[in-house]
């Protein structure tokens, strides 16, 4: 057989797999979203936008993404830098930090729910310390600020590790010589970080940001378990319309919105963090 075709032959199964299980449903979902009673229309989108939870879902989703993603990036950067200076037991530290990665979203949500409910661990501890005189609600519709904070903390705990892992891999790829050269010219550690490490880490940061942002827009189980009805997000609304209201059209419209937003975010990152051709 012609050797030129072998690579294509080898990737053919995965391409076929993606086409059948990803591309076809994608096209079907888009078609579903733009059809009502078998005719092309925007009725599903009108219905979605007219729903009382739609604005909340959009605002909540963006709130979470805008708060969580930058915090995670900063935290992960700091952790990756600290890790560089750890001599013994480096692997163990990395391993412990990435434990939350191995826990399912739902389980993580339930863990935080157990901590934060009225009779949860947090209230019990605060009661023992005498900070509170009785159980306090953190997660009700009357306490939107603590509810949002709880979800942010849970998301930080659960998903910072994925950013960390990508950044650690990126840091390890940076040749030591650059840092040593900077030292020779008398750079301070801060200058070394901003002028050498950060620019060289840009491709990893880009990957991490794209991955994290897309996942944050799709966040579901953790919000559902902590916030329930009090904190609708785009994906939980899609779930609601699909399973509780049985309106597949509106659910598909939500899915299309989530996809559009994720795509837009990815394009923005690709453009904003592009590496100029001269530096490649």
């Amino acid at each position, binding site marked *: 057989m012609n050797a030129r075709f072998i690579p294509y032959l080898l990737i053919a199964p995965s391409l076929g797999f993606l086409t059948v299980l990803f591309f076809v449903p994608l096209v079907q979902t888009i078609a579903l979203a733009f059809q009502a009673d078998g005719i092309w229309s925007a009725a599903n989108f009108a219905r979605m936008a007219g729903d009382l939870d739609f604005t909340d879902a959009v605002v909540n989703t963006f709130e979470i993404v805008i708060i969580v993603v930058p915090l995670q990036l900063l935290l992960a950067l700091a952790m990756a830098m600290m890790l560089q200076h750890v001599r013994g037991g480096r692997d163990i530290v990395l391993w412990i930090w990435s434990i939350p990665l191995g826990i399912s979203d739902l389980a993580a949500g339930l863990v935080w729910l157990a901590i934060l409910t009225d009779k949860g661990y947090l209230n019990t501890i605060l009661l023992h310390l005498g900070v509170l005189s009785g159980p306090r609600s953190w997660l*009700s519709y009357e306490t939107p600020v603590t509810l949002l904070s709880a979800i942010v903390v849970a998301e930080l705990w659960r998903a910072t590790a994925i950013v960390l892992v990508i950044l650690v891999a990126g840091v390890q790829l940076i040749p030591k010589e650059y840092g040593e050269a900077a030292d020779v010219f008398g750079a301070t550690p801060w200058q070394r970080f901003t002028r050498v490490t950060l620019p060289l880490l840009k491709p990893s940061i880009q990957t991490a940001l794209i991955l994290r942002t897309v996942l944050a827009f799709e966040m579901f189980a953790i919000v559902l378990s902590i916030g329930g*009805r*009090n904190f609708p997000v785009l994906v939980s609304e899609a779930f609601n319309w699909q399973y*509780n*209201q*049985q*309106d597949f059209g509106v659910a598909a419209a939500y899915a299309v919105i989530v996809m559009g937003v994720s795509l837009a975010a990815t394009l923005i990152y690709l453009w904003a963090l592009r590496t100029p051709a001269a530096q490649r």
Partner: protein
Amino acid sequence: MQKISAWLLVAGLLTATAAGARAGDLIFLSTQLRPIEEAQKMRNLILKDFPHKVDYVTEQPAQLPVRIKAEQQGGTHTIDVVGALHGEFQPLVPLDALVPLDDLAATIKGRGIPDPLMSLGKFGTVHQLYIPWMQASYIMVANREALPYLPAGADVNALTYDQLAAWAGAVQGKTGKRLLGFPVGPQGLMHRFFEGFLYPSYTGGVVVPFRSEVAETMWTQFSALWKSVNPNSTSYNFMQEPLLSGDVWIAFDHIARVLDALRQKPDQFVAFPAPAGPKGRGYMPVLAGLAVVKDAPDTNGAMALIDYLAQPETQIATARSVGFFPVVKADLPLDLDPGIKLGAGAIEKTQSAKDALTALLPIGLGQRGGEFDKVFIDTFQLIVLRGQKPRAVLDREAETLRRLMTETGAPCWLPDPPSTGACQVQ
């Protein structure tokens, strides 16, 4: 040689499993008693004495018509008996998926299933499409600690909504905590409270008087009552948990969802009917039935299973283990679990109340029942949780309701007055 024997072994195993699944097991698909504990009781206790082996399989209510339709279209029939609520059978009727059970209905006539229940199983046709299986309803449960705060002259078994508000207010005043609770969580059944209890009690209907002035007053009063409601209600799915933990002292829910509390601490709780409003004591009975699917693998076995489940002894065993109550004439034994007795007592008091006003589950909405429920939950969220003016919200949601009723063409059901054509909001 070794290879061949391995293949033989595999082949043998395959045949064995295939035979195991085929050996005449009846498939009983049910949308009720889905939680694993209840399903296990169904398998290990209730179905134990039936001569054939029965595979008890559960299915989400919304998936039932999807599955039946898929089997019809695919031509592979696996299900023998279906157990579901009255309203869940409705979408199967236009599919022509159920075997008429007129002969079976005649055979079990002597068991004392009340005629109104039997005729529900006909869906307005001449044929019996399902046999009533078991019933339940929604009740109120209160911690005994709340009883001293009952307003003067109030009888807990004949409360009005005004008295409930005064009661919850008094509890809040004395304890400083909001201890009234409703199941408004994502999986809670709060919509049934509006459709079967609050609306009928105040307006005497559900759909027709949806945006009436009485409804406006009702929502204003309910918003006032909400000031004594535990704010965590929006995450309660089953009221038995907050009742047991003491987060809630007075609660409304489906009997099956408070039964654990009643059974674990029968001395701690009382169970009683939901309150009455100006038009009576609205209440929603829950009726589950049993039907045989057309082209079922074993129609005779299916009939025999229904006959078995409708026997007084089986019905009592069902009440004992899962908290649904008999539809046939069966005296509950004296040694029955005190918690179940509490629940049964509350249902009995509701049904026999002089001002009782029956409200049926929505009928004729097919797969769009969820949208109907959403109208009530949205109205509640906007008026009560977000404090919007009832008039504007009712007018807006009435439009949604109107469109839904027109599109499904569902005629009015009790307690709304009968309609010609689709039930309409006035």
